[in-house]
């Protein structure tokens, strides 16, 4: 039943066919962008690695043999071993889970929060807008890592608190974007039309305003993933994120710092993972922007 012609039908017969057709067109446009596909491949790889970490990792991520410490990369230990004799490849593979956990949790908390605050602020305007945007600006004006540091210092170190701290520092950007988007169409005829039908403010915002803010926010979240990973790594590096012996990439770099000159692989391997995954999210986000948000397209 699901054929190319069925998906490409200009005159779909049912709601489901219309939705499927739209999604298919989006996917087709995206698949024509090679860089976005590279990004997608990296993200899929990250998902697969995180899902099957225990089976993929050749050794335990937390237990090592001290006799085996600081071995360079070899056929036995592809990425070498660290100062406690743990296999770095296994630690990087398990670290993918932690990274994914942080990134997803931050996105799930901060994006909806920012979207709603921004849309409400832009939709109502007036003093609601002034109060909410004042608050947003205060958060925006502080450097992200410093603010996150302060929150972790107050809440105590640990992954959950790092997530909360990063989420608290990430939402203002989305609020700004959502507000700017909302302002461009809050006086539009199509919004007036639903108001005239007697729709409540909550309904107008939820069903008519938010969907229009969604695409630019999704794009922005994807592009921000790299920043979130780096902030999480930064917190880990400073010892305020994941606690040992958890194989968080930032914390691993931090540990490897002392051997950077003689045993370069200890810090470089997790660093390499951070760079690749960040790059993957960036490329994918860029491609997504071209497809979802034709106005901001880089090429003319």
């Amino acid at each position: 039943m699901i054929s190319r012609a069925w998906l490409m039908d200009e005159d779909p017969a049912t709601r489901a066919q219309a939705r499927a057709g739209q999604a298919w067109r989006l996917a087709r446009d995206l698949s024509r962008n090679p860089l976005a596909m590279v990004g997608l491949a990296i993200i899929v790889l990250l998902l697969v690695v995180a899902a099957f970490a225990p089976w993929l990792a050749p050794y335990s991520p937390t237990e090592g043999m001290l006799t085996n410490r600081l071995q360079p990369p070899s056929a036995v230990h592809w990425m070498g071993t660290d100062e406690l004799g743990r296999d770095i490849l296994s630690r990087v593979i398990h670290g993918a889970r932690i990274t994914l956990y942080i990134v997803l949790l931050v996105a799930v908390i901060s994006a909806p929060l920012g979207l709603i605050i921004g849309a409400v602020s832009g939709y109502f305007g007036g003093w609601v807008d002034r109060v909410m945007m004042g608050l947003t600006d205060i958060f925006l004006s502080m450097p992200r890592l410093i603010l996150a540091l302060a929150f972790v210092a107050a809440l105590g170190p640990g992954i959950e608190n790092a997530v909360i701290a990063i989420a608290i520092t990430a939402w203002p950007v989305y609020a700004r974007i959502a507000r700017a988007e909302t302002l461009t169409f809050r006086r539009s005829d199509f919004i007036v039309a639903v108001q005239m039908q007697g729709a409540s403010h909550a309904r107008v915002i939820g069903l008519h305003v938010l969907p229009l803010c969604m695409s630019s926010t999704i794009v922005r979240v994807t592009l921000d993933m790299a920043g979130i990973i780096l902030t999480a790594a930064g917190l880990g590096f400073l010892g305020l994120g994941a606690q040992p012996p958890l194989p968080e990439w930032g914390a691993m770099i931090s540990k490897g710092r002392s051997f950077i000159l003689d045993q370069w692989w200890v810090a470089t391997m997790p660093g390499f993972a951070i760079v690749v995954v960040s790059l993957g999210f960036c490329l994918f986000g860029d491609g997504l922007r071209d497809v979802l948000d034709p106005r901001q397209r880089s090429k003319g």
Partner: protein
Amino acid sequence: MIRVEDLTVRYGPSTVLHGVSFAVAQGESFALVGESGSGKSTILKALAGQVDDWSGQMSVGGAPITRARSRAQAAQVQMVFQDPYGSLHPRRTVDDTLSEPLAIHGLPDRDARVLSMLDAVGLARRFRFRLPHQLSGGQRQRVAIARALMLSPKVLLLDEPTSALDVSVQAEILNLLKRLRAEQGLTFLLVTHDLPVVSFLCDRLAVLRAGRVVETAPVATLRDRALASDYGRELLARSEGTP
């Protein structure tokens, strides 16, 4: 059906309407004519509940319009906008747009109602799941009219409904509006600068200038080119291209 008395509207420090009064009978089609800045669109906005700072009295179907209006009251007055490109939600299909008012008011039989409305405005059923960008200007305007009629309103506010359309499409939409008005006993309040359109679609007209009603006349006066006010005659002359 519509009664407006001494309506004054301010936008910040400037007053855009100075005590406008007029009344439209049940089933009548009434035109507000004037240039931009005459305040004609502001009257529609006020009736639509889109203006905050107003004074005077407005009523529709005998019920006075207050600042907080009920859902049932809202359904009585619907609007068709000038720009067919900006009046439809860009991410919602025709079906979404037409089902929305039914969902808001919790009305049953959505599929049947949407389909019969598509037939009524002369839009083929195969367009039902299209997005606005897959429709032409005329088709979009048909969707906008269908949306306005979903709740079976008594009054339709028409804000230059054909001025953004091609000539041949304008004729189709004007015919449609005229037919729907006869079929459903609608009352029209039309805002336009196009006098021939008034002549085709309306029974009476009011000429506005700088926020005041200059003249109210039956449309026969317009057809005879016998408007009484200087300004009315000026508009007539301009419309016929004699500067």
